[in-house]
Structure formats: C-alpha cells, structure tokens
C-alpha cells in the first residue's frame, strides 16, 4: 500500500467521520422539530413552542456545519478518488445528483424560511417549511444510503470496455440487497442519537430543577423514543447482520473474529485480541456455538472463517472486531436506559428518580459514538474494496503525490478541529441554558449570546418577569 493511498483513506475517513455526525443529528432533530411544531399548532401549549425555538437555535448551528462539511465530501470523491469516480460515476453519480436535487435544495431552500420567516409567512406556512426541511433530511439519507449500499452490495450493473460500471436496471441499483436494512438501521440510529442528546439536555436541567416544565417535557419525549425504538433497532441490526452474512460473508467473519472455519458450530467471541498476522484471536472469552445459533439459528450449523478466503481479500479484523463490539455495547446500553426509564415512569417517578437521569446525561453523546463505530465496522469491513468484490481500494485513488494528500489532510485536521471544536462549544453552551418561557427564535436580542456557562446571565432581564413555569 502506497503512502498516498493510506493518506487518501485517512483523509476520507477523517472528513466523512466529522461530517456524518451533523446529518445524523439533523435528521433526528428536524423530525423532532416538526413534531414539536405540529403539537404546538394542535394544542397551542406554549411549552411546545418554547421547545421548538430552543432546539431550532441548536439545529441552525448543526445544520450549517453539516452543509459545509458535506460540500467537502461532494468534491473529495473526485479530488482523491478520481479513478473510482470515472469507473463508478455512471452508477453512483446520478444517485448523488438525485440527492442534491430532491434533498439538499429542499432543506436549504426552506431552512431560511424556517429560521427567519415565522413573522413573514405565518404559522401554517412555517410549519410547511419545517416539514419540508424534515422531509429533505430524510430524502438525503435515502439517496446517500442507496449509494453506499450499492458500493457494499452492487446490483443492476454491467461493465464496459473502459472498466466503467454501467447502470442496467435502476430499480435494482437503488433497491440493492442491503439497501432496505441499511436505511432502516441508519434512520433509527439518527432518531436514537438525537433522542439521547435531547434526553441528556432534559436530564441536565431536570437534575438542577425538577419542576422545569420544558425540561420535563423533552426528557419524557426523548425517553419514550428510546424505550420504543431501541428494541426495534436491535432487531433491525440483527436483520442487517444476517443480510451482511449473505452478501458480504468476509465482513461478518471479521466482526465475529472468525479467522478459522467452524464445521460444527461456531463460538461467539465476546472479547479477544485479533492478531491479523497470525490469523488468530488471542485471549478470547467465548460462548460455544452461540455465533452459529445467532447467525444460522442452529447451534451446530457450520460457519466458514477467513481461512476460506485469500489473504489479500481480508478486511483488517482488529478494527472491525472492536468497532462492532463498541456499537453493540452502546446499543444494549441504550435499550437498558429505555427499560430503566420505563420502570421509572411506571412507578410515577420519571422526574424524581435521579439515577436514570444521571445515566441519560452520561449517555448524551453515546449515540454519535455508536454511529461512528457502526460506520467503521461496515466501511473497514468492506475493504479491500470500494465496490465490493469488483473494484479494489488500491485501484480507486487519484494519481496524486503523497505530499499533496498529506498537506491537505493536515489542513483539514487543523481547520475541522478549530471550526467544529468551536461549534461544539457553542452547542454545549446553548444546551447548558434551560429552555425558558417565551423562548425566541434563533438569535433573538443579541446580548443573550454574551451569556456564560451558568444559565442565570443568559436570561434577559425582561424574561425574569416570567419565572420558570
């Protein structure tokens, strides 16, 4: 592997890992905002409007970061992966064009109205704009997951004399074998990740003041989402895993740490240290036959290992093995949080029993970690290919000199850590202030932003006339 190639991979991994955090949050948050505004229009309870305005400010910051980091992605495919672009462009390019035309324009076109236009267009049209933004974020997920799924499980294509992939059947390209599983898994992940953030912010303010009405409302809504969706996500993830076993067996072998074949029932390796050179997992803790039971629904079913695949086609097991465990571990913890808060609710102590609130606070960022770990699992697990089984990563990169890629990687690293680090700081500062009655839209009277980390100075004097209800 050449230096330029490994640098190009590092750069793509770095920029896309930064980027994915924002769409995940904006897919979930846009839907949450639409729900809040819908509830407000129906019930006219001010708490919903306060929550809407509170989260819209946060949405605005996250969305802007998503736009600019996404713009980078749309050009980086050509700048760093030009051979891939030439070969796969006829298939994946149109899907991305559809993403731009049906999703990005919709989001961006109505975002301005959503952020700044309530007074100008009235409540109903404003709600329509919010819905358009939410639909746009979902449409964006649809198309980009179609692209990624096609690269994982290509279908509906032919190959011409220049080695380009040609679309033969667009329905087969879009609805390729792994697409439905991946889309469901990803959208649920976005909802759960957002619910964890909303829940953590709610918990933070509940722990300080358990009578805070907006904090109670958002904590309760977020925990309902987690209680209901986390178990569904586990089932969806399991179904996705079975689909992967069918179409990308080497990836599942890497996830399971199965270097060796197991002709009569494969063990589930809970933990261990995969040694890629030796082709074994050291120091492993395993449960006999459980892997066969999960993957084949039969404890004695044979499962092939990486020893059935030429070594040059192996994914790098240690990364896939561990990222998968991180994702699953967090997934189970999220389901646990859902169960615990359901229990608290059943006892009528959702707002009074503190341990689940502390747990929710601590779990706030874990959805993002799980999403990143999941993507690492599926992307590193696809290696050494960009288009699975057909186009190798080593044959996909641009003919660039290593210093060019190294310099741009360094520039991205410096800029992203500065810019998005600052963004994170501003987001946390917004979240650290409690939502108050008569919350204004993004901005509001600007001295508000002079506030420090404690909420008190953040409340403009006129708002003190309306103590927390």
């Amino acid at each position: 592997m050449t230096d330029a190639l490994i640098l190009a991979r590092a750069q793509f991994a770095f920029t896309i890992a930064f980027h994915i955090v924002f769409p995940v949050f904006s897919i979930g948050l846009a839907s949450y905002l639409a729900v809040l505004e819908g509830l407000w229009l129906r019930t006219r309870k001010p708490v919903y409007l306060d929550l809407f305005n509170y989260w819209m400010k946060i949405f605005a910051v996250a969305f802007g970061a998503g736009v600019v980091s996404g713009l980078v992605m749309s050009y980086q495919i050509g700048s760093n992966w030009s051979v891939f672009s030439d070969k796969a462009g006829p298939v994946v390019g149109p899907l991305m064009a559809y993403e731009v035309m049906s999703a990005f324009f919709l989001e961006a076109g109505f975002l301005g109205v959503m952020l700044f236009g309530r007074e100008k267009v009235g409540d109903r049209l404003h709600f329509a704009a919010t819905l358009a933004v939410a639909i746009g974020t979902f449409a964006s997920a649809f198309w980009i997951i179609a692209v990624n799924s096609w690269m994982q499980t290509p279908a509906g294509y032919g190959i011409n004399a220049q080695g380009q992939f040609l679309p033969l059947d667009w329905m087969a390209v879009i609805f390729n074998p792994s697409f439905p599983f991946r889309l469901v898994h990803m959208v649920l992940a976005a909802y759960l990740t957002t619910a964890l953030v909303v829940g953590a912010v709610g918990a933070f303010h509940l722990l300080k003041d358990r009578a805070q009405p907006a904090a109670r409302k958002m904590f309760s809504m977020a925990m309902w989402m987690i209680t209901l969706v986390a178990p569904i996500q586990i089932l969806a993830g399991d179904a996705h895993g079975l689909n992967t076993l069918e179409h990308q067996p080497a990836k599942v072998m890497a996830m399971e740490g199965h270097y060796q074949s197991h002709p009569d029932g494969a063990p589930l390796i809970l933990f261990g240290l995969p040694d890629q050179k030796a082709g074994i997992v050291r120091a492993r803790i395993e449960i006999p036959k459980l892997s066969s039971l999960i993957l084949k629904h039969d404890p004695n079913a044979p499962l092939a290992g990486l020893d059935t695949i030429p070594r040059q086609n192996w994914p790098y097991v240690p990364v896939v093995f561990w990222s998968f465990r991180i994702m699953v571990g967090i997934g189970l913890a999220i389901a646990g949080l859902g169960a615990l808060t359901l229990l608290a609710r059943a006892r009528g102590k959702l707002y009074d029993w503190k341990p689940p609130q502390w747990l929710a606070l601590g779990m706030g960022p874990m959805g993002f970690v799980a999403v990143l770990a999941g993507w690492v699992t599926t992307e590193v697990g696809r290696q050494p290919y960009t288009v699975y089984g057909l186009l190798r990563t080593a044959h996909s990169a641009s003919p660039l000199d290593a210093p060019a890629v190294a310099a741009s990687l360094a520039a991205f690293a410096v800029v992203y850590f500065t810019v998005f680090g600052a963004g994170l700081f501003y987001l946390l500062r917004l979240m650290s202030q409690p939502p108050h009655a008569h919350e204004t839209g993004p901005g509001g009277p600007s001295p508000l932003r002079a506030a420090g980390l404690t909420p008190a100075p953040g409340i403009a004097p006129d708002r003190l006339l309306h103590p927390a209800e």
Partner: protein
Amino acid sequence: MPIDLTLIWAAILAFAVFAYVAMDGFDLGVGVLFPFFQRGAQRDTAMNSVAPVWDGNETWLILGGGGLFAAFPLAYAILMPAVYTPLIAMLLGLVFRGVAFEYRWRTERAKWAWDLAFCGGSALAALSQGVILGAILQGVKVAGRGYGGGWWDWLTPFSLLCGVSVLAGYSLLGATWLVLKTEGALQDRAYRLAAWLTGATLLAIFSVSLATPFLGAAYWRRWFEFPRILATAQVPLLVLLTAGALVYGLKRRRETWLFPLALGLFALGYVGLAISLFPYVVPTQVTIWQAAAPPSSQAFMLVGAAILVPIILAYTGYAYWVFRGKVGAEGYH
C-alpha cells in the same frame, strides 16, 4: 435526429454553474467586503441580507460538482485532481465562512474572529474559484483516463489573474446587492464600493479577455476567425453597453439597476467562456461527448432534473420573495 442527452446535460450543468455564480457570487462578495462596514449594526445588516438564502445558493455548487460527477464522470476524474490545491482551499474557505453565519451570533468575545473567518473564507473561496477556472482554461495534462500533471501545475500568472478577477467581480455583486437591500449609511458605503469595484471588474474582464486568446491557437480561432467574429464580436460590444449603463446607474444612484447590470456582466463573461470552451469540458482534449456517462445514466437523471429543477427554481424564488425588500434594522437574529 435523436435527442442529444449529452448536450442537454452540458446545458443543465452550465445553467447550474451560472446559477451558482449569480447567487453565491453576491453572498461571497458581501463576505469579502465585510471589513469595510462598521462593527455592529452595519455588519449585522450586511450579513442578514444574505443569511436566509446562502445555504440554498451554495447548493448549486454541490449540484455543479455532483452533476459533473454524474453526467461527465471522466471530466470530473481528470479535473478534480488537476485543481487539487485550489479546490481544497476553496472548500476550506467555504467551511470558515459558512459556519460564521451562526457562530458569529453565539459569542461576543470572539465575534471578531468569526467576522475575520467570514471575510477571509469568502475571499479565499472567491479567489480559488477564479484560479480553478483559470487552471482549467489554460489546459491540464491528461494521461490515459486521468490527470497526468503535478499538484502545482495550476499555478500560473494567468490562473492568478483569473482568481483576482473573480474576487473583484464577486465583490461588485456583493456591493450592488447591498445597494439593493440596504439603506442609509450602509447603502452609501456600498455605492462607493460599487463604483471602485465596477472599475476593477471591467479591468479584470479586459485583462482576462486579452490573455485568453493567447493561451492557445484554438482560443484565437474561436474568437477571431471570419465569419465567426461577426457573432463573437457582439459579446465585447454588449459588455461595453452594460458597463456604460452600470456607470450611468452609479452616477444617478439607480439602486435597483446596479445588481442586475452587474449580473449582466457576469452573464456576458459566461457566454464568452462558452465560446472559448465548447464543446470541450477539458479544454482541447476531452469533449463533452467523450466524457459523457452512458445514456442510461443521463436519461435517468434527466427525468429527475426535468421535474425537480423547475420545482427548485420555484421554491427558491419563493424564498427570495419572502425576504424581499430592504433588510430591516432589527435583523432576524
């Protein structure tokens, strides 16, 4: 004659790129001119004049890149590595100025830093876009189905001239936009800036026009061969007319004239580019037909584009209409 999908896609992409230049040009220009406005109300108003529309404007750039990838993958594969350095610079510039729209309102202490990011990022993006244009116009080395040159090939006096020219032109768009959208002291300042920038932009158009035919014999023939010249000569003549109207509008303070006239200059420059380039997408080496994706790709996308682009234009128009008129002093933030 069968429908030439490739030609249609070339036209759609040309439209997307022009839509980008026309729309993001002025909001980048507002960023470039930011230091000329007073801290506080003037800067807030200037930023608020573009805040509700900038994401939509920038989306045309994504369509330009994504569309090139989809409809002309070979051109995308050759050109993006060829302009690697200015491309990355442009993207980083856009990152800085894009986040500034929100960050700037989230801090008092570091507001100056985001003002700087807004101005510097906008200027870097504008400059880089011009350099990219120049680098493509002057030609790139092609090897097989890829780029065959080094990562500093783009850097020439010509590409830098193009960079400065686009910077001047976008600034003119920004200044005339502010004349249209603001009042009082800010508008006075925008008028003064617009006057200077009209001169700078005309000088830039003149220099680039003079330099381009000397880049290669092909450009020369395209512009000066008889009888082509009868048609091509109309472009510089129209530029002169537009420039005259712009100068007159500046003198008489016709606030609604200036922005459309400045856009007119860009449109004419764009027609000039089309004359220089067509039908090449990588000048003198790869035509649009050679770079084209297969008909099944282009046809599939055309269905979507035929339905969605008019809808996009309609709601983009709606968004502009919602925020029509002068920007209020109170601002949206």
